[in-house]
């Protein structure tokens, strides 16, 4: 049943969303063409358009995915969705999966087109490409992660994907809670209020987690402010603040170090799980379609 839900969810959304991606790609190609043909002003114009579209399509993808969730779960289509012989939580999971795929695809398209456009500009010759690669390796060396660059890219990609899941979870949660019968009188304000409240609470919790959870990255700078080291440490930001307060006046001229707490990132999966579990329960037990 789950695969059928996913299949039909794609069918319903595949009419519009990929179309947006194609627009972005098209604009990118147009720009590359203008560069190749040396069309001057037109080139600048199409560059601006392409960059704008890259950002816009991510936002549009999110908006369409969110709109689809609301429409199929709480608007007229809900009469079809909620009478399907499936467990109500499967509705949530299938829509989350499909929403995630489209949103991730929008990021990938944006990055892809962005990189493609940049490449068209910067790498007109083989020499330029070589310079770029050398420069890239130098930066990696400076930060001290030259040999673990794959890990770094992996972490960046994972962070991006998790942030997508977090946003979607927050939104689906807000829509579902905001559509329960107690909130009917608020109309569309219900989901919006719930979202604002949830987002704020999560940010506060994140900040607290970053501050107090004993896990961080210690960065060390030398006297002239250059970054000379990064290291994972088991220490919280808060204790670092306490330490530095205790040792006032001993700021050495040989450099400084600080800790960026990363405990908040650990909490992300916990937040996501809590949001989705609660949304799932609300959908199963408190659905009240108007």
């Amino acid at each position, binding site marked *: *049943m789950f695969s*059928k839900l996913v*299949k*039909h969810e794609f*069918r*319903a959304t595949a*009419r519009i969303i990929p179309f947006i991606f194609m627009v972005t790609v098209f604009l990118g190609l147009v720009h590359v063409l203008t560069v190749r043909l040396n069309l001057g002003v037109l080139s600048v114009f199409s560059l601006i358009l392409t960059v704008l579209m890259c950002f816009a399509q991510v936002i549009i993808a999110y908006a369409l995915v969110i709109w689809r969730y609301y429409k199929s779960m709480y608007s*007229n*289509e*809900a*009469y*079809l969705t*909620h*009478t*399907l*012989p*499936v*467990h*109500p939580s499967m509705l949530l999971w299938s829509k989350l999966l499909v929403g995630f795929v489209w949103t991730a695809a929008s990021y990938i398209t944006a990055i892809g087109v962005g990189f493609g456009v940049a490449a068209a500009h910067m790498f007109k010759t083989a020499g330029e490409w070589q310079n770029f690669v050398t420069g890239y390796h130098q930066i990696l060396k400076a930060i001290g992660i030259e040999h673990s660059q794959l890990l770094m890219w992996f972490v960046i990609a994972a962070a991006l994907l998790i942030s997508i899941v977090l946003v979607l979870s927050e939104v689906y949660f807000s829509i579902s809670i905001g559509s*329960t*019968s*107690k909130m*009917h*009188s608020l109309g569309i304000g219900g989901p919006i209020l719930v979202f604002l409240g949830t987002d704020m609470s999560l940010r506060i919790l994140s900040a607290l987690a970053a501050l107090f959870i004993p896990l961080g990255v210690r960065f060390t700078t030398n006297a002239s402010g250059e970054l000379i080291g990064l290291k994972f440490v088991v220490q919280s930001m808060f204790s670092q603040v306490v330490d530095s307060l205790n040792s006032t006046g001993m700021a050495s001229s040989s450099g400084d170090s600080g800790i960026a707490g990363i405990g908040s990132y650990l909490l992300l999966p916990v937040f996501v799980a809590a949001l989705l579990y609660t949304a799932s329960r609300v959908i*199963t*037990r*408190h*659905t*009240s*379609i108007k």
Partner: protein
Amino acid sequence: MIEIQNLNKNFGTNTVLSDLSLNLEAGRIIGLLGPNGSGKSTLLKILAGLTSDYRGTVLLDGHRPGEDTKAVTSYLPEKTYLSGWMRPVDAFDYFADFYADFDRVKAAEMLKQFRLNERQPIKNMSKGMQEKLQLVLVMARKAKVYLLDEPMGGVDPATRSAILDVTLRQYQEDSIMIFATHLISDVEKIFDSVIFLGYGELKLFEDVDRIREKYGKSVDDLFREVFACSVSL
């Protein structure tokens, strides 16, 4: 087959269903009658599983409304619930995928009888055509419970007659059909029994022939009597 005990439902401060208790047997066509806002649609939504937020007991063949009951319940709401881009073939694909009891051949034939085009998107159909399509989808399923919410509102008399035909054809001895309507005089001849719902309360639940014998009145006349005071001028 359908057991309802002390059903209560509020929307905020509004009480929509108040302490409702009913026992409905299989093999019957039941009319659900009441003025606008009396809770008929809400009752059907609860039976269909669209509203899980209520107090009291509701059992269909011993099960609470959920995954199992939805597989054997065919619900026709007043609203158009299909996406505008869908064509009848798409809707058939959808139903065939999720409902094991959906008869695609029968659906296609019924569609032809109603003179609808299989490939015309719903957004290009008139309201009457959309209603007919939704009726086809509901009746092409061999379900145990049929819930029809005002299937004849806004349709011409010839189509009303066709809808009654289809409903009667669909009748089976192990299934139950609940028909909510206000067009009582047109329809009362097909009911076994009727439920009068007045502002969420059960006013009457009686076999139709017994009403005719006991009161010497038609259901339509009795309805007017019972609800005369609830219509404000």
